[in-house]
């Protein structure tokens, strides 16, 4: 169980990205995070694996305090939290297989990974993960030779290499067309349902939320304004979250 309590983040330039946010996520749950651009969705997800240091508040995961973990402990926590990004964040000049193997960096011995050596089992695992996302034939292609949808699938495979217990997805389909968006979302759903991985996914489109999420939280200007099931978001709620002038699309 992931427990976020009174999480606040104020950036160095004074912008308050998160204000006293508290919520809980159960093991195996698919949680959607919605809100306008700049409402703090990305900051919230990045605070959970401390890519961004929270200003105050605590995050506890299965009783372990994430916010006060030492560098060494943080490394061990991070390796069990997979993350998928809006812009895929692949090393485009490297091979696909290298990008996928990077997911194991938290596990392999630091001294060995420096010379780009991975155990045989990890390499087999990388091929298996690529096969799972249907990209086995592209293993030795350069990442920038792939299309956007393929790159995001590599991103998912990289995250899966971590044997994650939590998957953070920061607008994973915002850069993709609707068809590809569904294919990526189905991978996340698969991971959630087959492997029992807790998924925290920020999304733009409400139909995706309805289709895939178990539960929704909504952020507005860094504050938690809604928490509940997807079908509870009616027009009034919608206007509350997205502002008065917003129109529902899709």
């Amino acid at each position, binding site marked *: 169980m992931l427990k976020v309590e009174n999480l606040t983040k104020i950036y160095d330039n004074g912008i308050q990205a998160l204000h006293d946010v508290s919520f809980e996520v159960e093991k195996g749950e698919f949680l959607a995070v919605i809100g306008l651009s700049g409402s703090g969705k990305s900051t919230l997800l990045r605070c959970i694996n401390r890519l961004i240091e929270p200003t105050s508040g605590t995050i506890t995961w299965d009783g372990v305090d994430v916010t006060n973990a030492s560098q060494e402990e943080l490394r061990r926590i991070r390796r069990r939290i997979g993350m998928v990004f809006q812009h895929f964040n692949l090393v485009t000049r490297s091979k696909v297989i290298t990008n996928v193997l990077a997911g194991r*960096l*938290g596990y392999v*011995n630091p001294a060995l990974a420096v010379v780009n050596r991975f155990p045989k089992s990890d390499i087999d695992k990388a091929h298996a993960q690529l096969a799972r996302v249907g990209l086995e034939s592209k293993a030795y292609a350069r990442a920038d030779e792939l299309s956007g949808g393929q790159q995001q699938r590599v991103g998912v495979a990289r995250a899966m*290499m971590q044997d994650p217990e939590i998957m953070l997805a920061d607008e994973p389909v915002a850069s993709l067309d609707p068809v590809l968006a569904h294919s990526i979302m189905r991978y996340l759903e698969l991971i959630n349902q087959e492997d029992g991985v807790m998924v925290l996914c920020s999304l733009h489109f409400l139909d995706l939320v309805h289709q895939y999420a178990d539960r929704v939280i909504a952020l507005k200007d860094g504050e938690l304004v809604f928490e509940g099931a997807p079908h509870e978001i009616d027009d009034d709620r919608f206007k509350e979250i997205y502002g008065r002038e917003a129109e529902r699309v899709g």
Partner: protein
Amino acid sequence: MVDQSEASPTDPGSDEPTKKKGRGWRRSLFIIIAILFTFVVYAFAFAKTDVSLDEVQSQTRQEQLFRILRALARPDLIRYDKEDLIVTADVQIPCTGTDPSPATPDESGATIAVNPSCSAPGESMTVNGSGFEAGKRVIVNFVPVSDYDIVLPQGRADVAEDGTFSLAFETPQRESEEPQQVVAITQTNVGSWRNRVSVWTDTNDNGVQDASDFPDSDEDLSTYALALPEFEVRDPGGVTLVDDNNNVLDFISWGGSFEARTGSGTGLVSRDIGLDPFDTSESQSLQQFGTGIDASDFEWTGPDDDSFGATNTNQEFVGSPASSGSFFNEVAFNETREIEIAGPPGSSLKGVSLIFFDATDGSQYKIIPIVDKTDLSPRLSDNALSTWDRIIETVMLALLATTVGTFLAVPLSFLAAKNLMRDVTVPVINLSLSVIAIPIGLVLGVRASQWARDISEFTDANIVTLVLGLLALTGITWLILRWTFPPEDADKPPLGTRLLRVAALIVVAFIALIMSYLTSDLLVSLGEGFEDLVPTVGFLGNFVVKLGEIALLGIPVFSAIIGAFALAAAASKFGYVLFQRLSRGVLNAATLITSAVAGAVVGMAIGGIIDWFYQLENPTATVLIPAIIGALIGMLLSVKALRKGESQNIGLTVYYLSRTLFNGLRSIEPLVMVIIFVVWVGIGPFAGALALALHTTAALAKLYSEQVESINTGPLEAVTATGATRLQTVIFAVVPQIIPPYISFTMYRWDINVRMSTIIGFAGGGGIGFLLQQNINLLQYRAAAAQMLAIAIVVASMDYLSSRIRERIV
């Protein structure tokens, strides 16, 4: 916002037009002042740079300029051997009544007549030539009576179609009772590119073109003299005269007779001169005298006035010479070190050599061929050859400097990259403990390297022992590493295991040190062995030896740095343990104390540097006071840091320090740096390479770091999120992104270094600049032109090459 709208021209207001008018006035005034100011600045610049039109228009200056430009247009690249046709006529200055002898015509029929054949100095004379080759240029010289070889050029003339020329000149202010000479010279190139001709050259570097034969002579033998000014003759010693079939023709010795033990003369006993050839003053020599045709017919006498190249005094060559009847005829080992041999006139000297012996053990130590090779004319001139040598040196110097600079700049560039360093923060107590640990680590590192050196001596630099030792140690290291670094990084092992692993790592580090020494020794031994085995490519062996020696020098430094880093890291870790275990109050107290100590350490280090530079030799001023001030500053900073937060941003400090250092180094031109390196390692390409390498390091580190700063941060974030360490993140997310720009910058830098190295010789840094400067200073513009041409070709082709390679990679 408000201010802006008030001042904006859209604001409607009644005073708008007057405002505009006033502004117009001010604008015009400003322009006038600006023009005046510009005028003054340029006037001042003209005054300061001495712009002088008189010099530009001066006749002599222009002539000099044209002469140089013309010389530059004819680079000295090709050498034609020339045959001179010289016709000499006597003239009398002033007239004495006796008629000077007319010119003797050359074999080809060319002759000159001087009209009048006598005159007072300063009056005009005309040289009329006939029978010369049409179209040739004739140089007319006046050779006065003088103790020195003086030649006064009088002018040039072109030979007309009918083979005549005429040149009037003013007789020089050289009066003499004796007849003086007017000389007409035409030169003909020997050979052509279609039909190259063999010529003899000066192989023994005695300044005289080698003869291929004994000169013609009216006598029954002729003589040929050979000067060896730089050659060291051993005393007692001897020399054999050997023909091209290795037959010993003559064998003389000084300081006693001895038997040759090596070479073609083995077993022969020398013919002792009986006199001391070293005991000859200048222009004196030991000579053979007597009448005859064979060495045994003559006897050594002297010292007497020398007669090198001619028959000796009191010597007559009479008889019919044997074809192999050459012998030593005259010798002097004073400053000039000359030896004369006598032999049948016209007989070939090809393959004939002198072999010098040491009488103490009868071994030969030097073979000097009299004539051993021919050359072709035309051919590349000596200047072209040395230019080639130097331009290769230049390119290699630039290559070496770029390589070294790149290797150093790559790791340094990460320190100067803001996006990597920004987030490196540590608690104050870690920082203080690390600072305290650094000097201890340095000392321990040096000590460790010394112990390792002592232990590594067991091999006695024997290649077999070295290899066996290396193999054994590699095995041990492998086993220990296998145990300490399991491939999968599982959960935190118990404390005992971790301590054991740390101990094992220390052992491995020490073994690695020993192995480094063994490897260096092995390199030196192998290189030396290779040098002896294959002397023709000895430079390869020498390179390996040098690599080994560099490693030997570098290991203690490297060990010290590693020691400092390791101990600092350990101290930082220990600090972290304290940070977590201690209560707030105790931690603050500990932080305060360690900061004070750390400040004192830094203070003493700075004090030590000051003492070294200014040699104050005052411990109070250079140790005590800096320590106290440092401690106070350390305490103040820690109080401030503790109040503000818990972590100190060490990364930014490193960033600013390295940036400042690089900018400082980069602003000093390599041409200036080389002056310091010349003092350290002496004049030559090595100094130039070091200066360029230092500058390259600073410049590339800056350029590289800017590349690191401009990388896509997405992958960085993604790799960090997987739980990778900072080093792993750099290797997986940063390095792949920066490889193309790094290669591109390195190529560009090589390009710059080649250009730089062409002039670094001006300051003593070797390369082609040295030769160029020398030739310019000696006013040899044609030679200098060859070097300029070489620079232009190399720089242009480097430019082309590097841009092509960069296109390929990026």
